């Protein structure tokens, strides 16, 4: 690791094979929202083993995600998936659910645990509790500001992983409302959620994956990298689960270059980098909750990121 870890998420073997991962250090395999997501690594255990081998052959750290909101009937498959992950050399498992955390801790203690954003770590006290269950890294709840995140790092020595760029998870459901459209659109599950789908109310926008809801805007921390690094953060996610291989590759290239520059004391990203991020952001850019404001706001020196980009409603409706 060159002073930091840049990672991303990939749901299935097809996307893994199609993605150029040169600028990533690590990858989380699997879709956390839905068991029947197309060829989900978490259900296709042969694919999962192959994916883990591919990543290892690339020299990448290979992590495996787990479901954000399981029910009892998920758990036998989760155990098999964890067994396959451990035997195929996964270097960590990301856990969003406290029951799965307990299963990993009790039954697969060889697997280090990264706690994901749906596990609701709001405080250092919460992180410390989960450390007792084997957690070694934490993504704090997305609602926390950087100041609040720093309160955690001030009292907990476990490293945090932060969303650096991409669509921020906003919610997860037991149900997929896209199934309502199978007949109307003539598109069956699991192809439905492969479409690019946004929900909009005026300028508000969210991306839907059926069971998962994401921010419509892409969280963008490009111009805030010096602060993140100065505050000691070194583990960063580009959330690209529902994005194209081009998005995954080009956004990573921007951030790897910018992180290297920021570590060398250079603070300004070049205009080409901004152009790349603007081109891939379907709705616009935001900062999530990092500055204590509404998640869709943008704070920084790039005014064009704050709502001035054409939104779908303005451009197409």
């Amino acid at each position, binding site marked *: 690791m060159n002073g930091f870890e840049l990672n991303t998420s990939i749901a299935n073997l097809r996307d893994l094979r199609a993605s150029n991962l040169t600028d990533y250090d690590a990858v989380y395999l699997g879709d956390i929202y839905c068991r029947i997501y197309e060829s989900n690594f978490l259900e296709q255990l042969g694919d999962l083993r192959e994916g883990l081998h591919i990543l290892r052959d690339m020299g990448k750290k290979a992590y495996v995600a787990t479901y954000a909101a399981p029910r*009892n009937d998920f758990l036998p498959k989760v155990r098999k998936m964890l067994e396959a992950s451990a035997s195929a050399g996964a270097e960590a498992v990301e856990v969003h659910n*406290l029951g799965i955390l307990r299963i990993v801790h009790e039954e697969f203690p060889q697997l280090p645990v990264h706690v994901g954003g749906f596990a609701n770590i709001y405080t250092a006290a919460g992180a410390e509790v989960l450390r007792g269950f084997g957690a070694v890294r934490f993504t704090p709840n997305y609602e926390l500001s950087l100041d609040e995140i720093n309160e955690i790092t001030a009292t907990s020595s476990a490293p945090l992983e932060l969303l650096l760029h991409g669509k921020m998870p906003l919610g997860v459901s037991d149900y997929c409302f896209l199934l309502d459209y199978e007949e109307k*659109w003539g598109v069956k599950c699991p192809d439905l959620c492969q479409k690019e789908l946004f929900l909009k109310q005026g300028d508000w926008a969210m991306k*839907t994956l059926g069971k998962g809801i994401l921010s419509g805007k892409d969280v963008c921390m490009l111009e805030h990298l010096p602060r993140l690094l100065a505050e000691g953060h070194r583990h960063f996610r580009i959330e690209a689960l529902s994005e194209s291989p081009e998005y995954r590759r080009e956004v990573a290239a921007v951030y790897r270059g910018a992180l290297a520059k920021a570590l060398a004391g250079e603070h300004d990203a070049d205009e080409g980098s901004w152009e790349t991020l603007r081109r891939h952001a379907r709705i616009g850019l935001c900062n999530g909750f990092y500055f204590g404001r509404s998640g869709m706001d943008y704070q920084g020196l790039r005014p064009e990121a704050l709502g001035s980009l054409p939104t779908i409603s303005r451009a197409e409706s």
Partner: protein
Amino acid sequence: MAVPVLLAPGGSLEAVRAALGAGADAVYVGLEGWSRGGARRELGWDELVAAQREVASSGRSLRVALNTIPRPEERARLFERVPALLDLGIRDVIVNDVGILAALRQRFERLRLTASIGCGAQTVADVAFFRDLGAYAVVLPGTVSPAEMREIRTVRGISVEIMVHMVEEFVLLGKCWMPSYVHLKESPMRQNGSVKRGGVGACFRICQQPWELFAAGRRVDTRLFPSRQISRIADVGAYADAGVDVLKLQGRSLPAGVLAPLVRRYRDAIDGRTIPDAFGPPPATLPAAWAVVGR
């Protein structure tokens, strides 16, 4: 087989009295400033004292929701309230965060701590986790079936509650920060953010407003996120058979006049199961007026 406890909401002193009058075995209330959902449904300290007096004198129990997630500097103020609760005779406290649960467990051995529905427990493994953490009880949503509950009840050493009457919104409780993504409500008094976080944690129900659905840049529909009122009164017996300890009703927003008949209906269903000849089978449905608006 034990008869489940009927746990009713009390969003005001009047509602507490109504719940008791209608046959609740226990009532839960929010302590002003420290409960999810906001001030309108909380009791001030004097009201809490009065409620506890009335509940205790009728031989039933009061449970107090302290289910915000306070910041570090606020936690000490929260902990300062606990000895006074214990002095009043209140041992049952509902919390919403694993850190707070563990900290309270460590500091106040006499407390019986419940992991609230906002903690997101849905599985047998989740319940085992909260048991291991030292929770006295855990609340599961009414979406969990009696069959699932039977498996969950194989976990011993923890009381299991189910929210048999609740609104099921599209996004799971404790896993939604859509409202604060759209608009973060500022308040000097209370936590900003989602309902999970508590306090001002405003849910202004953006999921229940019409959204335009765009596919590949083209508007294809206008729709709401699906949500529904869950009233599992017909399953009271099945949950009892599965070994559920507490049947909980959502609705600290319900006025006393609406709450009382709702509680009475569940009371009758529970007693109808234990004394079937007296009441016959419980009704399968409830009037629409008993839909809980908000939490």
